[in-house]
C-alpha cells in the first residue's frame, strides 16, 4: 500500500528557507505573503487494510519521520 507523508514546520517556527524562497518569488514579480518549506515522504508499506497502514505510518512519524517539537505531519494513504 502506498502512503504519502507531509511534514511541515509548525506554525511559529522560524523557517529561513521559506523566507528565502518567498523573497526570491517576490523578486520574480510574484506577490507572496508567506512561504513555508516542508518535505514529502512517499512510502510503500505492507498492511492488511488502509486503517492499519495509516496507524503504522503515523507511528513512523511519531518515532522518526517528524520531530514533534518543530514539525507537524499528515498521512495520506493513496491505495
Amino acid at each position, binding site marked *: 500500500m502506498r502512503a504519502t507523508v507531509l511534514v511541515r514546520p509548525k506554525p511559529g517556527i522560524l523557517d529561513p528557507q521559506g523566507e528565502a524562497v518567498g523573497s526570491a518569488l517576490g523578486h520574480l514579480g510574484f506577490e507572496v505573503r508567506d512561504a513555508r518549506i516542508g518535505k514529502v515522504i512517499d512510502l510503500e508499506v505492507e498492511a492488511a487494510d488502509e486503517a492499519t497502514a495509516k496507524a503504522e505510518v503515523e507511528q513512523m512519524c511519531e518515532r*522518526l519521520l517528524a520531530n514533534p*517539537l518543530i514539525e507537524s505531519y499528515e498521512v495520506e494513504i493513496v491505495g
Partner: protein
Amino acid sequence: MASPQPRIGVITYPGSQDDRDALWALAALDAEAVAVWHEERDLPDLDAVVLPGGFSYGDYLRCGAIAGFSPATAAVHEFAEAGGLVLGICNGFQILCEAGLLPGALLRNESLRFVCRDVSLIVERDDLPFTKRCTAGLPLVLPVKHGDGRYLPPPDLDPAQVVLRYVDNPNGSVGGIAGVCNEAGNVMGLMPHPEHAVDPLLGSDDGALLLASLVDAAREEVLTAI
C-alpha cells in the same frame, strides 16, 4: 597511589568527522580515549562518553535523527539513565536532542549559511562535571562550524539547564543558547567544538577547560568505584 586514568569513549558513526580530534584531545588531557563503533550495542567499561561532531548518516531527514536510533546510541541512553557522563559536541548535540536525552531541537541557521569561525561564549554554569574548571561569567573562545545550529528550546526549558550562551549569536539560537544540560546535569550538549581548541597553536586552548573538567569528573567516577 597515582591518580587513575579514566576511560572515556568516543562514538564513531558513519559520517562522524571529529571523533579523531576528540580522541586526541582526551588523550592529551590524560584520559584513556576509547574508540567505540556505532554498531556496538554494549559499551565497553567507560567512565564517560563523547558523541563527536560530523554528519552522522549523512544528516539525512534531520541532523542526528537516524543516529538517534543506532545501537550505540541506545547503549548511551542506558549509560546516561544510570547517571553516566555524556557530552555531545555539534552533531553529537543534535543526536542527543533527537534521542530525547537533551531538551530542544537544532534547526537550520537563521542566515542559511554554514558558519565556521571562533565565537565567544558566556559560561552560565560552572558547577557541572563539564564546566568545573571554568568560571561563570568569564568568556570562552571556541570554534563553531555548522549549518544547523539554531537551538530551539522546548517552551518549558528550565533556565538553569542553559550552560553556555553566545556573546554574538552566530546562528539565531533562541536566547543565544550554545549549550544545555539535562535536568540531572550528567548529559550536556554544545554546538562549539572544545576538541578543536586544546592547544594555543590552534588559536585557543579554552576547549581544554571543558574537556579537562570532564576528565576530572570521569576520574572521580573511577575513584568512587574503587
